[in-house]
C-alpha cells in the first residue's frame, strides 16, 4: 500500500481538472454564453491540476528519475511499455489531457495576448506578449480561422471530459479487487470529477472576483449556475454510492459484501463518514436559492466537497487494499510524514501556479466577453440592447 497515498492524490487532482474542460468544451458547444467569464480561469485550473496530478505517478513508480520509461521510446534495453495495461492507458489519457488542455487554453488566449502586447508599457512585456500572440492583428481572416479552430478544438476536447477519468477509473475497475472491480466506475468517476472540479472553481473564483475586482464579470448568476451543477453532479455521486452498496448486496458475492460492510463500519469508517457528509449531505443546501446565492454558504459547501472528494478516493483506495483476499496481507494504512508533505506540497504548487497565472496572463477571456456584448451583434435595433445585455 506504499503507493496508495500518491494514487489518492493523483486521482484527486486529475478529477479537479475536469470542470475546466467541461466549461470550456461542452458548455461552448451547447452555446452557454455565461461560460465566457469563467472559462479562462477554469481552463488554467485544469492545467495546474494536471501538473499536480502528473507529479504523483512520477513519484509513486519509486524511481522518480526514470519516468520516461512510461512512454514508448526506443531504448538500449529493447523494452517497450505494456499497451494492454490500464496504467499505460493512464499515461496516455493524462498526457493527452495535458496537451489538449494546454493547446485549448493557449489558442483561446491568442487574441488577448495581442491586446496585452498593444497595451504593455515595458519592452520585455511587449516582446514576450508579441511572440506568444503570433502576429495577431484582429483581421477578419484571422477571426475566421480562429473561430473554426476553436470549434474543432472544443469538439475534440469534449470526449476527453468523459474519457480521461473513465481511463483513470480503469486503473481500479480492471483490477480484481472487491470494491474496485465494477462497471459503475467510469460514469461514477466522471460525475465525481465534475463535482469536485466545480467545487474547486467556486473555491477559486469567489476570492478572485473579490480581490481582483471582477464582480461585474463573474456575477452571482455564474456562481449560482456552478452551484446548480455541483448539486446535480453531487446527486449522481450520491446515487453511485448507493448503487455500489446495492450491487454488493445483490451480487451475493461474499468478498464484495464484506468490503462494503467494512467501508462504513470498519477501521476506516471515519473516512467514509467524512466522505458521505461532505459529498452527499452538504450539497443538499443548494436546493435552496438562498444558499446557492450566499457567498459564505457556497464557500463552505465548496470546501466540504473539496475535502469530501479527496476522502472519496482515499476510501476507494484504502478500504479495498487494507482487507485483501489474503488475511496475511491485512494491515492498516497510515500515511507517512513524507506522504502528508507531498499532499501539502501539491496544493502549494497548484496555488503558486494559479497566482502566477493571475499575475501575468489574462484572467478573463477579454475577446470573448467583448463578443457576447450586445454591441458586438449586427442588426440589433438599439432598444434590444439593454434586454440582451442583462442576459450575458
Amino acid at each position, binding site marked *: 500500500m506504499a503507493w496508495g497515498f500518491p494514487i489518492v492524490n493523483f486521482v484527486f487532482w486529475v478529477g479537479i481538472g475536469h470542470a475546466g474542460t467541461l466549461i470550456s468544451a461542452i458548455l461552448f458547444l451547447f452555446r452557454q454564453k455565461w461560460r465566457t467569464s469563467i472559462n479562462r480561469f477554469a481552463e488554467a485550473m485544469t492545467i495546474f491540476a494536471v501538473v499536480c496530478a502528473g507529479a504523483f505517478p512520477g513519484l509513486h513508480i519509486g524511481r522518480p528519475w526514470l519516468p520516461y520509461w512510461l512512454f514508448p521510446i526506443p531504448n538500449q534495453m529493447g523494452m517497450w511499455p505494456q*499497451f*494492454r495495461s490500464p496504467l499505460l492507458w493512464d499515461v496516455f489519457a493524462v498526457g*493527452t489531457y495535458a496537451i489538449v488542455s494546454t493547446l*485549448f487554453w493557449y*489558442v483561446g488566449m491568442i487574441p488577448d495576448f495581442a491586446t496585452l502586447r498593444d497595451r504593455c508599457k515595458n519592452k520585455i512585456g511587449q516582446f514576450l506578449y508579441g511572440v506568444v500572440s503570433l502576429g495577431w492583428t*484582429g*483581421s477578419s481572416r484571422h477571426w475566421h*480561422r480562429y473561430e*473554426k479552430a476553436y470549434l474543432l478544438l472544443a469538439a*475534440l476536447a469534449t470526449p476527453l471530459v468523459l474519457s480521461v477519468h473513465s481511463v483513470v477509473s480503469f486503473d481500479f475497475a480492471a483490477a480484481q479487487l472487491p470494491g474496485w472491480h465494477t462497471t459503475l466506475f467510469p460514469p461514477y468517476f466522471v460525475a465525481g470529477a465534475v463535482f469536485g472540479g466545480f467545487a474547486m472553481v467556486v473555491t477559486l473564483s469567489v476570492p478572485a472576483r473579490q480581490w481582483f475586482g471582477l464582480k461585474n464579470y463573474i456575477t452571482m448568476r455564474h456562481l449560482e449556475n456552478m452551484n446548480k451543477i455541483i448539486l446535480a453532479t453531487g446527486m449522481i455521486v450520491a446515487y453511485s454510492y448507493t448503487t455500489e452498496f446495492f450491487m454488493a448486496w445483490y451480487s451475493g458475492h461474499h468478498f464484495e459484501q464484506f468490503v462494503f460492510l467494512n467501508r462504513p463500519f470498519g477501521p476506516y469508517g471515519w473516512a467514509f463518514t467524512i466522505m458521505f457528509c461532505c459529498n452527499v449531505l452538504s450539497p443538499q443546501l443548494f436546493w435552496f436559492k438562498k444558499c446557492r446565492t450566499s457567498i459564505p454558504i457556497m464557500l463552505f459547501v465548496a470546501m466540504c466537497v473539496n475535502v469530501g472528494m479527496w476522502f472519496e478516493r482515499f476510501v476507494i483506495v484504502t478500504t479495498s487494499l487494507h482487507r485483501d483476499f489474503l488475511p496475511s496481507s491485512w494491515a492498516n494504512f497510515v500515511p507517512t510524514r513524507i506522504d502528508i508533505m507531498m499532499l501539502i506540497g501539491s496544493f502549494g504548487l497548484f496555488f503558486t501556479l494559479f497566482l502566477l497565472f493571475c499575475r501575468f496572463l489574462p484572467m478573463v477571456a477579454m475577446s470573448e466577453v467583448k463578443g457576447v456584448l450586445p454591441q458586438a451583434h449586427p442588426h440589433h435595433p438599439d432598444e434590444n440592447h439593454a434586454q440582451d445585455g442583462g442576459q450575458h
Partner: protein
Amino acid sequence: MTLGMPTHKPKELSVVAVVAEFDSVDSIMAAANKVREAGYSKWDVHSPFPIHGMDDAIGIKPTILPWIVLGGGITGCIGGLFIAWYSNAFEYPFLISGKPQFSLPANIPVILKPRCYSPHSAQSLACWL
C-alpha cells in the same frame, strides 16, 4: 475598427491606401458590403472580436482546416495502433496470462488519445495558413 490596406509612406502625393474607422458593428458591416460590391480585392476588416456575418460580407473562402484536422486524427490513430502492435506483438512479444498479443479492445484507450492530440498539434500549426 479599421478598414485598411497595406500602408507605407508615399513618396509622391498619390493614394496608396485608405483606412477608415467605424464606431458600430452595423456601420462596418454596411461598409464591408459596399467595398466588396465595388470589387476591391486587397482589403480587410480588423475588429477586437469576431463579427458574425463578416465572413460573407468580405467574401472569405472556407478554410481547409477541418480536413487538416481530420488528416491529423487519422494519422494519429493509425500511428498509435502501429506502435502498440509493433512494440507489443512484433518487436517484443510478451505473454501475459494467456491474453492475445494484440487485440483491438485493449488498445482502444491508447489509440483514442493520439486520435485526439495529433489533430490538435496539426491544428495549431495549420491554424494560421
